[in-house]
């Protein structure tokens, strides 16, 4: 296991401690518990809808990295690739409510869903309004939109919800615009090599030399098919076509593209993909704005990438451009 860590059991705690030491002015643990992260100014919080998420560790900058201005108010994390418990989520929701309610925005995974169900039921007793929006952007995971997994597209969802809340949208309005955004967000990825959950110590799956797994999930969930490694341009074309089949991009549409590295794939390669995507868009007279290219949602040291396309209307574009600032994310240098 080629990892730099102390004991696998301490990995998540030590990661969060490192983050809190690095960005003291910006984030902190809630109740000194490393499983919940909130903004450093959480105690004098703004009069706005709270936005929280939760999920497994091992995906930095997802989830912790998006706690910040114009983004998330808080985040609960579990062990690597595992949900946190309902009580952490409930504590987090309480801490992020300013009276206007809290949006629970998270990926469509069994553990996270069940725990959020338990947590939201729990905070109801305290008269905290919540609304839940599930991210289901991974087109490779199911034909049925509602059954799809949430992957990198959640970064756009965090951005939209965070900006809407900042702009004073009500809980219902934040939920509505986030859902509308998600209806126009699609992702598909490929994995080239596995990753290792520290407590397991060995890869939970393999991808043979010369092969790539198309549509593999960010925890190694099986994809659509195992194919020979293809050229970057062919891969971009393949994913673009699959996504376009659902988003129906047409002349004069505006999109934002997220070319996301899963962990071990060099940044250079992501730009080779982006180059082709722009070419494909040009041929349809679709314009690309505010691209996000880099590691936004990882699976530790997995090699591979995902491509997310976000079809923008005026409202979503405005929200995407709205300032956002966390130690791991800002859009002020992207345009």
């Amino acid at each position, binding site marked *: 296991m080629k990892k730099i860590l102390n004991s696998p059991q301490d990995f998540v705690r030590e990661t969060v401690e490192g983050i809190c030491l690095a960005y003291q002015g910006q984030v902190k643990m809630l109740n000194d518990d490393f499983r919940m992260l909130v903004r450093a100014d959480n105690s004098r919080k703004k009069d706005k809808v709270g936005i929280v998420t939760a999920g497994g560790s091992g995906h930095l900058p997802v989830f912790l990295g998006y706690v910040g201005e114009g983004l998330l108010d808080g985040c609960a994390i*579990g062990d690597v*690739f*595992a*949900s*946190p*418990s*309902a*009580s952490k989520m409930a504590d987090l929701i309480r801490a992020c409510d300013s009276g206007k309610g809290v949006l629970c925005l998270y990926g469509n*995974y*069994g*553990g996270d869903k*069940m*725990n959020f*169900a*338990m947590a939201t039921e729990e905070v109801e007793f305290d008269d905290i309004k919540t609304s839940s929006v599930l991210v289901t952007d991974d087109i490779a*995971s*199911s034909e049925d939109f509602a*059954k799809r*997994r949430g992957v990198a597209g959640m970064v756009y969802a965090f951005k939209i919800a965070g900006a809407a809340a900042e702009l004073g949208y009500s809980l219902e309005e934040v939920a509505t615009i986030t859902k509308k955004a998600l209806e126009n967000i699609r992702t598909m990825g490929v994995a080239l090599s596995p990753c290792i959950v520290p*407590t*397991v110590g060995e890869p*939970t799956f393999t991808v043979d030399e010369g092969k790539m797994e198309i549509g593999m*999930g960010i*925890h*190694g*969930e*099986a994809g659509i098919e195992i194919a020979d490694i293809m050229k970057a341009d062919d891969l971009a074309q393949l994913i673009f076509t699959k996504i376009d089949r659902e988003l129906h991009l047409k002349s004069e549409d505006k999109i934002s593209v997220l070319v996301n590295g899963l962990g071990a794939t060099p940044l250079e390669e992501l730009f080779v993909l982006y180059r082709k995507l722009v070419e494909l868009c040009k041929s349809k007279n679709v314009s690309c704005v505010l691209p996000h290219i880099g590691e936004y949602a990882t699976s530790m040291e997995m090699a591979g990438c995902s491509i997310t396309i976000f079809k923008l209307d005026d409202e979503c574009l405005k929200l995407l451009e709205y300032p956002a600032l966390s130690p791991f994310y800002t859009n002020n240098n992207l345009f």
Partner: protein
Amino acid sequence: MKTKECIQYFERIKTEIHKNSAKLVELDQAFGDGDLGISMDQGFSSVVEFIKSCEEEDFGKYFMQVSKTFNESAPSSLGTIISFGFMGMAKSMKGITDAKLSDFQEAFKKGLENIKEKTGAKVGDKTIIDSLEPAVNAFCGSGNQKEALHFANEAAKNGMEETSKLIAVHGRAAYHKEKTLGHIDGGAYVSYIIFKALLND
């Protein structure tokens, strides 16, 4: 029966789960993420740890704490599903300090109901329900504890085995659809282990 007397049952479940941990990992690896053995191990050993020092006599509050403890240490899908079960039991046993078999039978029903309500899963969906529902029904079919557990154990086993003929529609396994045919569901296997441990044959 007092809350203190529950320890032996939980101990037995914990031991049996631990023995089968590798088997559960294997079952979950087929179409899930392979953590089932680890999370169940964690959940039940934390519960045993907790109840050893728990002085609570009210079965309602007792199971509520068991539910929380289990969820804290095993917040995976099945971990949370089982916590929903304990929560249902807690609601049903509120105020009871000396429980009869019929109290437990009622509690098991309520636990099962809560799980079904929260997950939306029903018999035939290739989940823990396929073993749990027949087991709970069988458990309620006798006034004699030994016999009730014996029936439950058998029903749990049959239900578990039946899952190999089903197609998964919930959880990670659902992504694999038809491919899940011929494989036993890990959650159903957990239910089978629990009833086997309770019977302690």
